[in-house]
Structures are given as structure tokens and as C-alpha cells.
């Protein structure tokens, strides 16, 4: 199998996580709670499937006319006093942000944003001497514990309240802090309050860009988002070029499906929509960085471009039985779970994260919940195909798996060969049958099976042999075309 170039591949990264009982309990609890809430609020929408259909088509349509919509967004945002920047990759985006922030401030307040994670903005800011302060509670926890987010919507779901207490007690110097969620939240509120009121520059992501108006929409719960969007003098937003929607009205679809899918709420506490600069209201300087970072590569692949339809609700993660076992860190990537399994390798031009498309049993639970109907299993299979295709010629020809696959195909292309293989299998399996009468240990690749499972041996007679014997007359004879 193709090994990723860097970072541990999924199966090996998963191993220590599977043994971490505490972590698995935390993940299980969190995903259970969100799933239950989600299915309740989705269940009360008789038009849910119609909303999904519309959402899917809106996203598809947007991608088809993406260049036009981005130009339209740029024009309208600029007319409203905003400044639009374009970045081909992470370095360019980081450079733009640093340049804007550098002279204005020594620290910036930040709203949780997967995109800034993707480009490693915090590291870049720190290197430039600017201190980024995460203001979303979960991101604050992750940042202060020098950890990585493990979920798109609830980045700290792998950390429980006792762990948060110990952390805050240390970093905020609060020795008396209890581990009640209320007290921990209150501690974060007090810690951030002055920062909100005084920091002159904020950095955010964006949930949606509205081409028609040049507006930006951000969806959040805690009010930290509104603080960042409203109080500082300067606001810098970073958005993937995939974030655009054609018109204001299209938000009526997105804002119905997103909160129900993401947190299981009918509507999240706060949605902010603003357009450029509003005199006397909010930041008087607004910049937006439109980021490609290989999204245009994804757009090029007709069978995978629906990956770009994602609105980062995280529902696929909560529904995924693989994610449930390992949590997000096994994916070694900013985007975990099913969406990570398709997005990460593509963002790396299929040069990294090649084990991720295989980190799925193709059960389809992700597709079932995805509010924009991304057929994730289909994309996974397609990417597996690309990974096989791009194997070096040597591996594609002589690799163990490739040989096994071609050999199996060769058998299946002839009934006689299949029969012969069945006969040989029955003979050969005797080598592996244990005392219990079952196969308990298989060699090579197949050994994965017998690590936790036995295998019943092949019975002495195949079905085709049985059928043939019982009545020659009703067997349709070989029709000649195939051996």
C-alpha cells in the first residue's frame, strides 16, 4: 500500500488512541450528545430533504460559476469599503495577514477558524512577533494546552472538564477554580473580557461570502465572534474561495441546515452578517483574504470537486463509526473524520495523507447526514483509485496488493480457474486450521484479519458444485462466450 510521505499513517496513528480509554470515552460522549440533538431537530423539519437538495444544488451551481461569483464578491465588498486580497497558498495568506497586523498591534484576537488552522496562521504570527489569542472556548483550551483541535465544530471534545480545570488553574493562575463547566466558562469570560475591549485587530474565518452584496456571514455561539467582529478597529477575515454563495437569499437555506447539522440547534445563538465597513458601527478597516491553497486543483477533478461543497458542519464526523473509535488526532490533519479523509489528501495534492481514503468502511453514515449531500463514500473510492493509479510503476506492477488484485481478477475471469482456486484453497487452508477447527492465524496482509477474528474454513463443497450435482437439468449450461 502507498505509504504517506510524512506523518504516521492512519492505522498506526490510530493504535495508541484506541488504547486511550479516557479519550475514547470523551469522544463517544460528545458525538453521542450531538448526534442525539441533531436527529431531534432534523426530525422536526418535514422539508429537510428539500433543503438538502437545494443546498446541494446551490453549492454545485456556485462552483460552476465560481470565478464570476468571486469577482462579483470582490467588486461589491470593495464598493462597501472592504479590501479584498488574494492568496494562492498558505505562505501568501500568512504574509498578507502579518503585513496588515504588524504595525497595528502586538497581539490579535481570533475567532475559531479551520482555514487559519489549515494555513498554520498562529505559528506564522508568533514567528512575526504577534501573539494570537484564541477566543473560542474550545480553541482557547486547545491553544493553551499546546494541543491540536480534534473536531471541526467542537475542537476540544477530547478534553474533559477535569483536564480543563487543571489547565486553566495553571494558565490563568486560578488556584481555587472548580471543575464545574459553569465556573470554567466564567473563568474564560473574565480572562478574555479586557482583551476584547482593548485589542485593536481581530482575525476571523468566514462561513459564507455573499457575492451579490459583498457581505460575509459568521456563525457562532459564544459571542466571542461578535466581540471580534464588532469591537476592534481592524478586522481581517480569511476565507477559502469555496465559501461563496450567490445571493443573500441563499443564506436562508444555509442558515437552516448548518446549525441543525453542526450543533443540533434550531439556530445557533449568533449569526453575524456584515458588508465591508459600516460607518459608526464595527471595525472601520476591513480586509478579506481569498485563499486558494489547492482548492482549484480539487475543482479540476470532476469526480472529487464536490469536496468543495462542504460547509464544515462536522455532522459527518459525529456520524462516523471510525471517528468514534479514534477521535480526530488519528487523521494527523486539520480536517478529521470523513471530510478530512477526502479533503486532506487533496489539499496535499495526493502526496500526503494517502492512508486517509482507506480509513473508512464505506458505511455511508457520513453521506446520509451531510447537509449538502456530498457523496463521501464515492469520493473516497475515487481517491483510492487515484492513489492506486499514481503508484510508481514498480509498485503498480510488482506490489503485493497489486499482484493479489490482478491475480484475483484473473481467477474471476474464468469459471474453470475459479473452481481450481477454490480446490487449491481447500487444500492450502489445512496449513492454517488451528485446534478449534477454524483458521486462527493467517500470513502476510491477511494477518490483519486474524488479529482479532477467526475464520471458518471453506466447506468441502462450493455452491456451484452442489447445484451442479443436484440437478443437471436446471443448470443453465455455459453459454459459450465465457470460459
Amino acid at each position, binding site marked *: 500500500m502507498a505509504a504517506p510521505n510524512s506523518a504516521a499513517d492512519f*492505522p498506526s496513528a*490510530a*493504535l495508541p488512541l*484506541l488504547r486511550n480509554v479516557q479519550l475514547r470515552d470523551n469522544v463517544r460522549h460528545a458525538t453521542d450528545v450531538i448526534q442525539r440533538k441533531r436527529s431531534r431537530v432534523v426530525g422536526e423539519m418535514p422539508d429537510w430533504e428539500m433543503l438538502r437538495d437545494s443546498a446541494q444544488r446551490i453549492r454545485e451551481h456556485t462552483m460552476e460559476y465560481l470565478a464570476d461569483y468571486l469577482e462579483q464578491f470582490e467588486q461589491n465588498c470593495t464598493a462597501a469599503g472592504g479590501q479584498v486580497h488574494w492568496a494562492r497558498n498558505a505562505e501568501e495568506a500568512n504574509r498578507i495577514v502579518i503585513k496588515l497586523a504588524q504595525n497595528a498591534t502586538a497581539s490579535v484576537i481570533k475567532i475559531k477558524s479551520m482555514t487559519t488552522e489549515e494555513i498554520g496562521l498562529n505559528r506564522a504570527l508568533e514567528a512575526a512577533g504577534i501573539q494570537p489569542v484564541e477566543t473560542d472556548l474550545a480553541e482557547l483550551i486547545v491553544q493553551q494546552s499546546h494541543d491540536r483541535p480534534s473536531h471541526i465544530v467542537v475542537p476540544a471534545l477530547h478534553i474533559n472538564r477535569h483536564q480543563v480545570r487543571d489547565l486553566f488553574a495553571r494558565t490563568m493562575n486560578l488556584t481555587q477554580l472548580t471543575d464545574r463547566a459553569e465556573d470554567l466558562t466564567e473563568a474564560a469570560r473574565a480572562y478574555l473580557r479586557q482583551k476584547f475591549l482593548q485589542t485593536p485587530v481581530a482575525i476571523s474565518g468566514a462561513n459564507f461570502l455573499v457575492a451579490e452584496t459583498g457581505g460575509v456571514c459568521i456563525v457562532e455561539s459564544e459571542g466571542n465572534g461578535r466581540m471580534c467582529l464588532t469591537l476592534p478597529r481592524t478586522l481581517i477575515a480569511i476565507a477559502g474561495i469555496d465559501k461563496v454563495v450567490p445571493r443573500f437569499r441563499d443564506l436562508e437555506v444555509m442558515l437552516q441546515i448548518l446549525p441543525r447539522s453542526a450543533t443540533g440547534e434550531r439556530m445557533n445563538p449568533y449569526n453575524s452578517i456584515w458588508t465591508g465597513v459600516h460607518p459608526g458601527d464595527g471595525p472601520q478597516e476591513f480586509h478579506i483574504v481569498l485563499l486558494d491553497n489547492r482548492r482549484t486543483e480539487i475543482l479540476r477533478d470532476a469526480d472529487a470537486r464536490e469536496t468543495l461543497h462542504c460547509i464544515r458542519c462536522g455532522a459527518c464526523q459525529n456520524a462516523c*463509526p*471510525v471517528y468514534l*473509535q*479514534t477521535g480526530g488526532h488519528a487523521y494527523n490533519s486539520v480536517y478529521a473524520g470523513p471530510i478530512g479523509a477526502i479533503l486532506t489528501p487533496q489539499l496535499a495534492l495526493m502526496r500526503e495523507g494517502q492512508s486517509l*481514503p*482507506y480509513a473508512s*468502511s*464505506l*458505511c*455511508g*453514515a457520513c*453521506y446520509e447526514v451531510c447537509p449538502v449531500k456530498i457523496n463521501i463514500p*464515492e469520493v473516497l*473510492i475515487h481517491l*483510492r*483509485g*487515484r*492513489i*492506486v*493509479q499514481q503508484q510508481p510503476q514498480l509498485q503498480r506492477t510488482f506490489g503485493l496488493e*497489486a499482484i493479489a*488484485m490482478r491475480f*484475483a*481478477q484473473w481467477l*474471476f*475471469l474464468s*469459471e474453470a480457474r*475459479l473452481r481450481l482456486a*477454490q480446490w487449491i*484453497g481447500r487444500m492450502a487452508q489445512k496449513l492454517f486450521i488451528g485446534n478449534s*477447527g477454524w483458521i486462527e492465524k493467517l500470513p502476510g*496482509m*491477511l494477518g*490483519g*484479519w486474524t*488479529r*482479532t*477474528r*477467526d*475464520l*471458518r474454513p*471453506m*466447506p468441502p*463443497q*462450493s*455452491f*456451484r458444485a*452442489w*447445484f451442479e450435482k443436484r440437478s443437471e437439468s*436446471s443448470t*443453465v*449450461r*455455459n*453459454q459459450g*462466450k*465465457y470460459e
Partner: protein
Amino acid sequence: MRIALFITCYNDTLFPETGIAVVRVLERLGHTVDFPAAQTCCGQMHYNTGYQAEALPLVRRFVEVFREHDVICVPSSSCVAMIREHYAKIAVASGDLRLQADVTTLLPRVYEFTELLVHRLNVDDVGATYPHRVTYHASCHSLRSLHLGDVPLRLLGKVRGIELVPLQKLDQCCGFGGTFAIKNADVSGAMLEDKLHCIENTQAEVCTACDNSCLMHLQGAIHRQRKAVRTEHIAHILASEGGSAEPRKDTV
């Protein structure tokens, strides 16, 4: 009615008793079962693992072998899902117009076994007797690709003597996933543990499903851990007539 059976490669080799049970049920209902001998494999393993080029000849072969058959019965929902969800796409990708046309006429003729009984033959009582405590595991493909819904349960509900116990977390994958079980053996094993736990909670004697692939996976761990429950393909239960319902020696 003449019904062609596509037994699938793994049932043919590993679970011939499932095919035998399917034949018994269909014949008991007065139908004639054909078995086109040239049949082998639908190409699912190749396709899902990324060897799409290698799957194409198998798709062609399947189309050819079943060209003349009006009703094709498949006792495996994952193979039906492969055919329904991917054959058309594979045909388009091949650029072969004739294959595309062939696939279009093939698809409406392919039925999963329980789907055939309920939707095509319009029976839910197949005259079976099976006096055991049974829980039904919905395979992912039966649930999300074929949308079988309560079709298998309707059939099981009509079996005499059966005691059906619902399985918790019915919609959660057992962790099989074809080559996933090997490539990600540890995660797959952890998913399997969860499923086993739910099955044990039902205190059923038998866990059944429309797919021997999931059952083989479950059975593998049940055997390793010497658990009391056993697995049976749904065809086996529907074929039972009381006396013959005793577990096969080789699955205990």
C-alpha cells in the same frame, strides 16, 4: 417464475449453505432457480479498493452472463449496491456505449434476496418455522444503499416460533468494510467489539443479516472469544421448517 441466482464469489466459496437456503425458499414458493455457471464476481473488492481498471472486465462479464435473465436474485446487499451504485458510472467511464446500454437494462432486473421476496414476489410469509431468539443486524449497504428498511424484518416477523429482539445502534457499522478489515484491522476490531456488545445485550441465540460479509466478520470474533451467540444468513432462517432449524455443526 424463472429466477437466476447470482450467488456471489464469497458465498459460493465460503457460504454455500446460504445459496442452498435461497434455492430452497424460492422453490418452496414454486419458482425455478437457474444458476448461470459462468458467473464469478461482481468486482466490488477491486472497485472499492481502488483497482477500478481491474474491475471493468468483471463488470463486462457480469453483464454478459446475466444478459438473458429477467430476474436476478443476489443474497448479498453489498454486491447489489456495487451493481446499482457503480456499474453505470463504470460503464460511462469506459466510454463503451454498448456497455452503458446493457447496464441500463440490467439494473432493474437485479434484486437483493429479501427485496425480491417482498417487492417482486409480494410475499412476506415464506412458510418458515424457526423457534429461536433472533436479532437482526442491518448491514450498511442494506440500510443506506438499498434502503431495505423493514423488508427483512417483515419477513422475519412472519416466521413461526421466532422471537425477534431489536438490536441497539442498528445503524452503526460492524466494522467489516471489505479490505478495511485488513488495512485498518485495529479500528475495525474496535468497531466489531461495539457491535458484539450490542448483540450480546440482546441475549439472542442467533444474529442474522442479509450479508454474509458482516456475519463472517461477527462470527470471526464470536468464535475467537467463544461466545454463545451464532450467526445465520437470513435465507437460512427463511428456509427453516422447524426440524431442520438446528444449527449446522460447523458454525457452533
